[in-house]
């Protein structure tokens, strides 16, 4: 071959690039600027209770629940599809799970896999319809949104004999070995010790004000790490980016686009079911309105975190930060002294500001125009 002089190592056509610029270019870290902005805002305006340990866990817990959906939704969006049925899936899977533990009396070790499998099956059906018909996933999963919501109502009424709420779940799962994995707080012992040692606040009776870290937060963090690992460090991650970037080109290059997409639909549905299990066990009951509009919020969180609606670009860590931003803004206003009538104005304004700020900082730092 030709003997070109090796100029790659010192290319005169590349300017030196500071570390910060290199970091901000990563879609994973784009949302950090928005998080900083929002945190700064609340530090300045909110009651200090918000950033006490219990206050932080209080807004992280809904953020985590949203995030479990948002991370899965972000993977699906990167893969080029939507799933609008995940909110309804939360209600539907909650019903299945409730029926398993209350009506059939199954232990968790059976109920949870059954619930997840059921959800994954429906996810696979969504995926198959999308791929078979070539219809946009928006419309197919929209039909799923309506149908699952309706079926939850019909099913709950049928199971309970007329009510839209199924109760008695907490009693049914009490004492099950798996319960602590899906509900309640983790590290209870540690926190009790810390409280005794006076390191964290406690009630007058000596029990810590914060009994532990809600398990959903651990799941949320774990899921974000796992999804990031898959996206960035496995062949499957490469396939997801490729399938979403250009399905034809990916398929022509040998990526099994169909399988990737179906797997993503299954994952998204299963994550919705996982959330349902946790919510139902925490609340002790489920009703037909659970998860209402969560699909929408999950997409919002993913987009705040830098996912493109057109697919092929985004990150799970972005969705993680997006969920935290969203959760913080939604709960945060309550800690401030603003008139609560302005809540929605404030919510919209903060979201827009956070995203614009992300964007502006990234452009400034990386020198894009």
């Amino acid at each position: 071959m030709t003997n070109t002089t090796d100029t790659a190592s010192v290319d005169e056509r590349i300017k030196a690039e500071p570390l910060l610029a290199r970091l901000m270019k990563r879609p994973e870290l784009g949302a950090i600027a928005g998080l900083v902005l929002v945190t700064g805002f609340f530090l300045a305006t909110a009651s200090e209770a918000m950033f006490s340990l219990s206050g932080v866990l209080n807004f992280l817990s809904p953020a985590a629940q949203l995030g479990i959906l948002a991370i899965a939704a972000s993977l699906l969006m990167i893969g080029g599809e939507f799933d609008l049925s995940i909110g309804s899936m939360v209600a539907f899977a909650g019903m299945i799970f409730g029926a398993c533990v209350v009506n059939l009396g199954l232990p968790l070790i059976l109920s949870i896999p059954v619930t997840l499998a059921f959800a994954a099956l429906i996810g696979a059906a969504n995926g198959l319809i999308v791929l078979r018909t070539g219809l946009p996933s928006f419309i197919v999963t929209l039909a799923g949104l309506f149908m699952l919501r309706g079926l939850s109502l019909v099913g709950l009424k049928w199971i309970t004999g007329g009510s839209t709420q199924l109760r008695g779940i907490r009693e049914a799962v009490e004492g099950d070995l798996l319960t602590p994995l899906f509900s309640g707080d983790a590290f209870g012992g540690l926190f009790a010790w810390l409280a005794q040692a006076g390191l964290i606040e406690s009630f007058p009776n000596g029990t810590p004000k914060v009994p532990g870290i809600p398990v959903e937060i651990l799941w949320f963090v774990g899921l974000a790490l796992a999804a990031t690992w898959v996206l960035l460090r496995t062949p499957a991650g490469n396939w997801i980016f490729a399938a979403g970037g250009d399905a034809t080109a990916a398929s022509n290059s040998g990526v099994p686009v169909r399988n990737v997409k179906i797997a993503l639909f299954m994952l998204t549905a299963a994550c919705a079911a996982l959330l349902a299990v946790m919510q139902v066990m925490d609340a002790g009951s489920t009703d037909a309105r659970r998860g209402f509009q969560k699909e929408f919020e999950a997409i919002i969180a993913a987009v705040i975190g830098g996912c493109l609606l057109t697919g092929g670009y985004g990150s799970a860590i972005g969705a993680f930060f997006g969920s935290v931003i969203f959760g913080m803004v939604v709960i945060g206003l309550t800690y401030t002294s603003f008139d609560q009538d302005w809540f929605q104005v404030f919510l919209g304004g903060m979201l827009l500001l956070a995203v614009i700020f992300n964007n502006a900082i990234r452009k400034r730092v990386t020198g894009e125009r």
Partner: protein
Amino acid sequence: MSEPIIKLDQIEKHFGNVIALNGVSFDVRAGECHCLLGDNGAGKSTFIKTMSGVHRPTRGTITFEGRPMSFSSPRAAMEAGIATVFQDLAMIPLMSVARNFFMGREPTRGWGLTRRFDVEKANAITMAEMKKMGINLRGPDQAVGTLSGGERQTVAIARAVHFGAKVLILDEPTSALGVRQTANVLATIDKVRAQGVGVVFISHNVRHALAVGDRFTVLNRGKTLGTARRGEITSEQLQDLMAGGQELAQLESTLGGTV
């Protein structure tokens, strides 16, 4: 001569009411470079897409290594040993060069849960293969969408050559390439042919075709005009055939045989 690796017989392909291929037969043997030539819109790209599993032929049969075969997907064709450079390159603009290079065939490291995409290896191979073709990339993580036209085409070629097992299909691979890169690609074709790979080479450049081709098949309006061996046909005859058998004399006189 040896048995053909892949043989297509009387292939037809219709898109709705458009007849793109109307009975084309073609084969490739190990160690030969078979050029597919023809006017714009003759159906060359459509034909090689049926060969690499993208389209399913409306009619006609495909025989691969002696057995009848119908590829269900490009992945299946790839696994059988067919590597293709498509005319549109099949690249994802938002993804990095290295990720595009290994798309669908990622090298891995580790086992079980720690089995992972070996990014370092992918990066190193990509840089090395690109340099072999005469392109010094700034870095393996540049997005393909920001590459120049020729750089992008080189990625696609280097990728196909790297993975090409039994048949290598190149759809106008040199169209956007510079002088040096073109020379490299032609030399590469020469090299892989010597290693026993069957090459299908599509080009509008008669000189490039004559430089590496062993056989020449000309398509016109969805049909085969005929196949010739190297040496059986002159550059001028081939050029006339490629233009659909039409008179080029008038043009040639004004432009002085430049085409």
